[in-house]
């Protein structure tokens, strides 16, 4: 039984006290796009792709608690445009070479681009000079592909208890740094750590497994991102 209900685009959604809008939407089979959010991690509120209007005010669905009788707008032309713009920003901020990235097909940024209908970004590419850290025997970090979503920061701190990653610098100079002067190889990260597994893009990659599944048969090659959540709604009798 749910504690209360609220609406998303007019659809009544049950929710429990303490649930975020995004969690309640997921349970109801409504997919709100998101990039920095990951199950088991505290929400970060970094990417803002999950922005919705709560009683007319923009909020990130991943951080905002659901409340009784709340009116949430989610899939409107206006909000779709904001989300698309933010995802385009992420594409131009880094160097995302999808055509030869081993994450291609499993990449959430790429999948989000397809889902939101981005063919080519309208913003100019920034072509930043960024480094690759290959000092670790089993894991590499390619900062070119990083979208500063902070999943690795939260996973390493909260799930692995290691604090291997943290943001350094400020503003558009922000980047993820590691907890050692000499690079990732000097940290106690292991390839089995959640922090090494949860990167949504090809920035943190476990070595020597990149092409185990051929392109064309990867996760989002088959179905668009969010399909698993939307499938829940199709399966319930009340779903439209």
């Amino acid at each position: 039984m749910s504690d209360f209900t609220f609406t998303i685009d007019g659809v009544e959604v049950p929710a429990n006290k303490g649930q975020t809008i995004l969690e309640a939407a997921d349970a109801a089979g409504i997919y709100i796009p998101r990039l920095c959010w990951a199950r088991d991690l505290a929400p970060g509120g970094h990417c803002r792709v999950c922005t919705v209007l709560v009683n007319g005010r923009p909020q990130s669905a991943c951080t905002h608690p659901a409340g009784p009788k709340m009116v949430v707008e989610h899939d409107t032309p206006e909000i779709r445009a904001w989300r698309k713009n933010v995802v385009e920003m992420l594409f131009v901020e880094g160097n995302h070479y999808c055509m030869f990235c081993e994450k291609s097909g499993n990449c959430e940024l790429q999948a989000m681009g397809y889902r939101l209908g981005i063919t080519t970004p309208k913003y100019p590419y920034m072509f930043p000079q960024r480094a690759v850290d290959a000092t670790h025997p089993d894991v590499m970090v390619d900062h070119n592909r990083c979208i500063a979503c902070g999943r690795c920061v939260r996973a390493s701190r909260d799930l692995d208890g290691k604090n291997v990653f943290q943001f350094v610098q400020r503003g558009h100079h922000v980047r993820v740094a590691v907890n050692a002067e000499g690079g990732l190889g000097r940290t106690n990260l292991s390839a089995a750590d959640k922090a090494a597994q949860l990167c949504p893009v090809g920035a943190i990659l476990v070595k020597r497994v990149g092409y185990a599944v051929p392109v064309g048969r990867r996760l989002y090659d088959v179905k668009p991102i969010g399909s698993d959540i939307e499938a829940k709604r199709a399966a319930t009798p009340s779903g439209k």
Partner: protein
Amino acid sequence: MAENLEKVIQEVTARYGKDRTRMMDIVREVQARLGHVSGAAMDLIAREVKSHRVEVEGVVTFYAFYTDRPKGRHVIRVTDCVTARMRHVDEVVAAFEKELGIRVGETTPDGQITLERTSCIGLCDQGPAALIDDVPVTYISSDKVKSLVRVLRETGDAKKLVKTLGEGNNALDLVHSMVINNIRKRGDVIFAPFESGSAIRNAAAVSPAEVIRSVKTARLRGRGGAGFPAGMKGEFARNAAGDRKFLLCNADEGEPGTFKDRVILTEAPDLLFEGMAVAGYAIGATEGILYLRGEYAYLRPYLEHVLEQRRAKKLLGKGIAGKAGFDFDVRIQLGAGAYICGEESGLIRSCEGLRGSPRDRPPFPVERGYLDLPTVVNNVETLCCAARVLEKGAAWFAQIGSEQSSGTKLFSVSGDCRRPGVYELPFGLTVAEFLKEVGGDDAQAVQVGGPSGTCIDRGQFGRKLGFEDLPTGGSMIVIGPQRDILDVAAAFMEFFVEESCGWCAPCRIGNVLIRERLERIRAGKGLPEDLTYLEELCTTVKKTSRCGLGQTSPNPVATTLQNFRKAYEAKLLPARQDGRQPTFDLRAALSEAVRVQGREPVAH
């Protein structure tokens, strides 16, 4: 050297109880003693306070005044504020570069002096100004640069640069500053004489709930710009669960064009601390923090002295005003050059020794703030108003100003006017009346509330300053008829790009994109469609950003696009008739190939 490093870090961390929430103080002091916070120092700090090296690195690299690389013994930080640009600060910077033989960002080969630019330092009415080490140096002209550098080199002491002392408390030994107050108009709330203890006695005579009721009856609203009802905020915190609560004072005014709190801190600190004690009593907090922006570090010894005096007079400490249970004390937390820490949740994080990135709300600080405990963050001026409400009564306060904006407001006035400085005026006056007062009648525009506020044109000078129409945290930049409005907007965008914390994507990236397109237009290469492009970009950043910074950072462009569209249109390229993109320069695009191949293309 290695041993010395270890000794310094042990001493410094021990002084702060090896408490990682005091990271701001630890880093500041380590840097003061060693010149910079090296990787080795980060490792040691992390070890001593049981943190992680990368956490320390995150803090050191977040704040503009901290550095992980060696700098000169002295650092000259010249303000990059738009008001300084209006006064040819670029010539001053060029003079420093020439005199020192280095460029901005570099250090002299002898390791003595580093030259940097910095955001607004709160001296817009006496600029161009610079911070040389912690010492504010005002009214710098290019011909003074030579002697400044000479004195600095000869004495090795930035304090020796102070030749003429400012008026009022600026001349006290503990302040010893050339800064002037420039109080042009005194009102009844902030700059009227105040007898220490008068508000505390009245508060102590009634219950905390009645103190909150008074503040509500006075209709006091936050002076930082957002205007949240102060009584309501206090009540939320009072009603929040938990015994340990905090009262934080936001003295991190960083909005370009704002310097009113500097004058309060200099001339009316007793009124402020009285307000903090009263507010602490009202919400049930016994601990207060004054978050003082790093740019105002020169005021710290004096403020510490005032706190000491108040402790001696039983106006701080245990049993204030002889009332058992009325306990309250204040510590000063210095910031380190990050505008974002003026955002209340960023300020809280900074007080906790973290990067100053704001939090998502809810939960609000009144429920979970400093150390995850109920916290009220109030502006300096708001707390002063609260003290005055308790001293003179809610009815007295409420009759000043207008219906929705009671009391007076401090305005920090700079830019193209004859009488820049600080004005205490009742809310509700029109912009035209205001301009008459400050001697800026011929303005083409006024930037109300700083860059995050709004840029209005002459057609709107009839509007009223107050929460009901034109709210402002106090920054008022007068823009004269000779200015190019796009130059002003560009300077402001530069500021936001620099000061974004980088936590969320739209603010981190979007502001850079806005600046890029604005620069393209300023360079005469903009297209008509760039204006709609900018409008959509501004909307996206405003609607999707996480905190008040990103939600207002496009305003310099968004509000000028609305109010000064002709200034943009005048710079655009006409659309080409042949369908080609007018911005595409074939020759420039091919230039590298031409150079490599050593020949011109056959046809182009």
